[in-house]
């Protein structure tokens, strides 16, 4: 009877897409007399990508842990939909040598997942060829994709990713956010992203919540990026964001240096004079914000 019940409740979530999957009301965590984060107020609905941004120590991870039921709020409340299936991609997992754990077994870590479902999820994130490897032999990027595959194989209602692009280069970052969007469209799940990265993450997001010990501002990426609180928090780096995040993505830089366009053709470069439509601002330096904003402006002008 138990499983029937949860099944029914799960369907109830899907029938009411307007109800939030996750609702945090005035939630806070206190440790040894200090509030790590306080007054957190936001919700995540099905089919929505919400991003938590903020500098180091702003309480992003603490907030995520409250959302995930890892930490109990000392104040306020966190409400999750009844029977909510969560897929969690943590920042890092270290697997000891003593633990014989293959990727294929790791996929079934927290619940029953059929071979077919596991295979589909691994194909989606491009790690199917690693399924017989031991997880401790994977590189950081490979393991990240395996963890993402494991989370989506569960067909979650809510997918939570903690700093998913750590150690991923700029092109890989865009690709990863595209993948997250695709997963959202396919599973119509809610997505909660945690990131300290400002640039690309905002492009991939429906709503941004900017944290600094409390919610300092929230809204669409455009509204947040132009708010005073946000500029104050991130300083000069913030001003470069606007130019970057409102772009339409019409080509991909391939690993060999050539460019694949939206129509499928491949060329040496991505300049407008090679005959393709181009309003895309792109960068090859992963972290120089000043450079990026400059070329961003010139790209828009051209």
């Amino acid at each position, binding site marked *: 009877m138990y499983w029937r019940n949860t099944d029914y409740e799960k369907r109830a979530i899907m029938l009411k897409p307007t109800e939030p999957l996750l609702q945090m009301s005035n939630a806070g965590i206190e440790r040894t007399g200090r509030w790590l984060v306080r007054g957190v107020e936001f919700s995540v609905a099905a089919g929505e990508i919400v991003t938590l941004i903020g500098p180091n120590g702003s309480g992003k991870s603490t907030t995520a842990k409250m959302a*995930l*039921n890892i930490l109990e709020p000392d104040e306020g409340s966190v409400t999750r939909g009844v029977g909510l299936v969560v897929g969690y991609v943590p920042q890092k*997992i270290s697997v000891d040598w003593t633990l014989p754990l*293959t990727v294929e077994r790791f996929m079934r870590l927290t619940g029953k997942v059929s071979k077919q479902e596991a295979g589909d999820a691994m194909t989606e994130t491009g790690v199917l060829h690693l399924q017989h490897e031991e997880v401790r032999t994977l590189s950081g990027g490979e393991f990240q994709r395996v963890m993402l595959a494991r989370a989506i194989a*569960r067909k979650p209602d809510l997918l939570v990713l903690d700093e998913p692009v750590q150690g991923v280069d700029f092109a890989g970052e865009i690709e990863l956010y595209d993948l997250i969007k695709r997963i959202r469209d396919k599973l119509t799940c809610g997505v909660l992203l945690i990131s300290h990265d400002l640039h690309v993450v905002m492009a991939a997001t429906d709503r941004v919540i900017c944290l600094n010990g409390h919610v300092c501002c929230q809204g669409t990426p455009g509204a947040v990026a132009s708010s005073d609180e946000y500029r104050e928090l991130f300083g000069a780096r913030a001003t470069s964001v606007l130019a970057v995040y409102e772009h339409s993505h019409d080509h991909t830089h391939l690993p060999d240096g050539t460019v694949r366009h939206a129509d499928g053709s491949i060329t040496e470069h991505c300049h407008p004079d090679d005959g393709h439509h181009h309003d895309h601002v792109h960068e090859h330096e992963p972290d120089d914000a000043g450079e990026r904003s400059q070329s961003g402006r010139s790209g828009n002008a051209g």
Partner: protein
Amino acid sequence: MLDDFFTRALVAGVGVALVAGPLGCFIVWRRLAYFGDTLSHAALLGVALALLFEINITFAVFAVSASVSLALLMLQKRATLSSDALLGLLSHSALALGLVVLAFMTWVRIDLMGFLFGDILSVSRADIAIIYLGGLVVISVLLLIWHPLFAATVNRELAQAENMNPDRANLIFMLLMATIIAISMKIVGVLLITAMLIIPAATARRFAKGPEQMAILAALIGVASVLAGLFGSLKLDTPSGPSIVVAALILFILSLVSAGKHFTTGVDAKRIATGKGPSK
């Protein structure tokens, strides 16, 4: 069949090994070897209390070991001392308390060596019944909590976030540890119980491809150690408990020699050959 003391010893030892293997895997995976030592040292206090209040020894040992695990859980939450300091404190104070209480009871004569190093050759039919009933309970409960416990072993936060209730699994696991120590004390003695738990598991690691496989292998390697140890002790006239542990150690060393080749040429060489770098 159970009339012969040597047969009874074999049957009892095999029963303990079958349970100790899978449980030992979790001790190895979770780095709890020292915790196992703490619980088994506390067992001596259980023996002393059982004699003092004239209650069943197996039950008293279980009760004391379980209390020590719960005390540890509570002390860890307050966390002013590090975990290993707390374990050392609990372990040696329980052992010392046990010895002192035993010394006070001048009216009981007990074979201290029997409790410290085991007395498998004096196993009775009732002991065998306790080992197999207790063992059956431990294995059944372990099967029930296997998935959440394994998920919690890989990553507690992930297990918690995905609704596996890792804290409940951890608590039950500690009670299972207390049980295995209570039922296996007579076989190898309180000083060597941890060896029966971790050496077969460590040997199994070299051949296992998955956690379930490692648990089964550890049980089988444990059985082999008991058989080799007991027959060895009969032949060479050595103490039986320590002989079982020595047999387990010999199997471990053999696994180093034979699997050493497999291991480095298996995984690492394949990585080098396929051009993938070492893991980060």
